[in-house]
């Protein structure tokens, strides 16, 4: 049994220690807002926060989570910055298919919590998740709006 704190709740999980956090969230705990896209740290669809840091959960073995608190998209609106990010996403109608957008919102929230007024360079550096629907410009505009 491994103990986890996710979105402020405590869970005990029975899974192999090398199981990626992504699949524990999705399949064991039913938190399916976090998405599987590539499994190899390429796409960022699986982005969650570990102690506030944007982290690709497909690369986080269960055994390495330890005491770090996990925040997923399901709780993002409970965070003040997260709520602003979501409102900007809605206002600017960012998503197309939407599949990458949980990860994009998580990455944007982590960026704005650390750097409330990011430069264009900060946005390029932090927002590296793939979007096959090509919503990159709308994403950048929404990050700017959420920071304003």
């Amino acid at each position, binding site marked *: 049994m491994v103990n986890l704190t996710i979105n402020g709740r405590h869970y005990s999980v029975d899974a*192999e220690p090398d199981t990626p956090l992504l699949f524990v969230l999705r399949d064991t705990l039913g938190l399916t807002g976090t998405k599987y896209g*590539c*499994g190899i740290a390429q796409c960022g669809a699986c982005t969650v926060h570990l102690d506030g840091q944007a982290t690709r959960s497909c690369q986080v073995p269960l055994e390495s989570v330890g005491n770090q608190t996990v925040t997923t998209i399901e709780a*993002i609106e409970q965070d003040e910055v997260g709520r602003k990010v979501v409102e900007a996403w809605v206002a600017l109608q960012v998503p197309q298919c939407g599949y990458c*957008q949980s990860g994009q919102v998580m990455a944007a929230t982590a960026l704005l919590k650390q750097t409330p007024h990011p430069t264009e360079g900060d946005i390029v550096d932090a927002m590296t998740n793939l979007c096959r629907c090509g919503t990159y410009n709308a994403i950048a505009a929404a990050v700017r709006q959420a920071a304003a």
Partner: protein
Amino acid sequence: MIPLLRPAAPSRRRFLAGAGGALVLSALLPARSARAEAQGPAEGAGALAPKPGTRVAAFLEIHPDGTIRLLSPFVEGGQGIATGMAQIVGEELDVPPSRFVVECAPPGPDYAVVNGIRMTGGSFSTRSSYETMRRLGATARDLMIRAAAAKLKVQDGELTTRDGVVMHADSNRSLSYGDLAADALKLKPNESVPLRDPATFRYIRQPVPRLDVRDKSTGRAVYAIDQKVEGMLYAAVQHAPRLGTEPKGLANEAEVRAMPGVHSVHRLPGAVAVAADSWWRARKAVEALKVEWTAPKASGLDTVAADFSSEIMLAALKASTDPGQVAEEKGDVAAAFAKATKVVEADYEAPYLAHAQLEPPSAIARFDGNGTLDVWLPNQMPEVFQTVSAKVAGLQPAQVRIHSPMLGGFFGRHFFYEASNPFPQAILLAKATGRPVKVLWSREEEFARDAVRPLSFSRFRAALDPAGQPTALEVRTVGEGPIGRYFSMMMQTPVDPSAVEGIVEKPYAVPNRRMTFTKVAHPVNIAFWRSVGHSMNDAFYESFLDEVAQAGGQDPFALRMALLQGNARHRTLLSTVAEMSGGWQRGPYRGEGGMRARGLAMASPFGSETATIAEVSVEGGEARVHNLWIAFDPGSIVNPAIVKAQVESAAALGLSSVLFEQIVYRDGVRQSQNYDTYPVLRREHMPKVHVSIVESGAPMGGVGEPGLPGVPPAVLNAIAALTGQRVRALPVANTKLSSV
């Protein structure tokens, strides 16, 4: 595009002519009366053989709280069709689109609103169903008014509606649609209700917010991959390294069976599978399986042979001497070449492409005690998947329920492509285990089995007169398109329209033309891929046209204008895109950070028209695109915000394909396994995209795909203007560009 989907409705006879695709065919011709019976009695006499798109109860559920559930004929995958349908129906029904909950309807003859068939593709949804769905909304509104008239004991004509309420102004009484729905649906619908005057539209042509955006921004949107049913097993697969080979022996089956959580190990057509209590455990186990596969043929192009490669395929296309079939012919090409002062020739080629939609494909199959089957799966054509599911399960189609969740991107990925879809595996595994089974393909298995945009080849020749004007154009296209592969029974000539679109039916007045198509089949699973034949053919044609301009000493913009003499629609688009970009200038010129140049291209995809300008620089041997200006004329529109977003999305995919993308086969095996070996457009390569909608009033065209085809050639033409290098083999990443 699919030829039968041109405005004239297809005849049953034409469907039945030709051979092949029997499964697809039977799915497209649903047994109407039996199906309608199974759905029970509905409103009035039309119930037994519904004319698609007319039976209000099949589409609308009006709830007491004023919300409306709309069962849409179309699946939402980012193109905004759910919102568009709510706008169109809501406009006539007089209910704000924001009150709609839109879901993809189950299979059924009511939903065959795309000229008699059902599909989400070909950029067909809105333009094919616009009138039908308006009429449906208007018919439903009329039912509400009549039900209210009966209740209030007044004449229909004394009643008005507003936002889901019927009002009687004289007596100051009103009834909500929710209160009227039960009575209204018992009435016989009026055959011809008047439609709203477009001048009074409140929702159509407005940038109505999308219905799914909040859910998609908060992780609440549910895709196929997110679904779960009680008691299900998770399955992962390992496909044969080469399509067409089969599992022979499993060296370590007992060992794998003993791995944690493993339920069972299975052999499937062209694959092995492990079912387990979690997907991660299933995946680890299936990847640990040591499988011996049957041997492929040593060589040849009828199967994926041991030595099959993209290179061998391309060589076969180039080497074919079969004259093929005429796809377009005008004037006397031979005479024009005999008189030419100059002849320009060039070969163009494009690689296989993966869809690389971000949601990996999955499917859940569940047999119920009463001999029926439920399947949850991503799909663009529910009736076809129902028919195929039934065949795999040994059931009748009416015993199969298809659930079509929202798609995490599709771009043509979710048609039926035989071994390239996971749902037959889910059905076989559910049968074998006696449990519901969810099959999910890892990203690696998806790159291994996705059906691919065909590798393509065309040879161009142009004759020029002394003034540098093209007098003749000859194009020889060799290969295969997805319509010929999967829908050959719909083709009216041996020319596969999906192989030649973008090369034929161009608007330019070149007096003598001859385009041919020679079929050479691919041994791999080929696919529709956003904008299909246009995705490479417009790149070839428009790039070659710039070569012609150069050979004739003409400016590419001036040459196009000259070839469009008297063609107001296209000339307007060209002038619009030039104005948007601050006036046409080819360059090279000095821009921020170095030299830049611009390229121009036009395309006529899916009933719409585009003119595109790309601005490019070269950094470290690679192309950088800074701006794309796109003038887009789809005739008329429903939602300008969605149209602009779709054009930008299509442009991004076009740019991704021209710069980076390729599936390369070597020794019968694809060389890409994941996004690290199949690079797609990333943020740092995303240009500014400027879209201007021109509503010419021409018949409504498509929106989801047409933004794409102009982008690749505009980029190629800009690169040529900047570097003098004419890239004729895609993607551009395979060519080292010279610095300027």
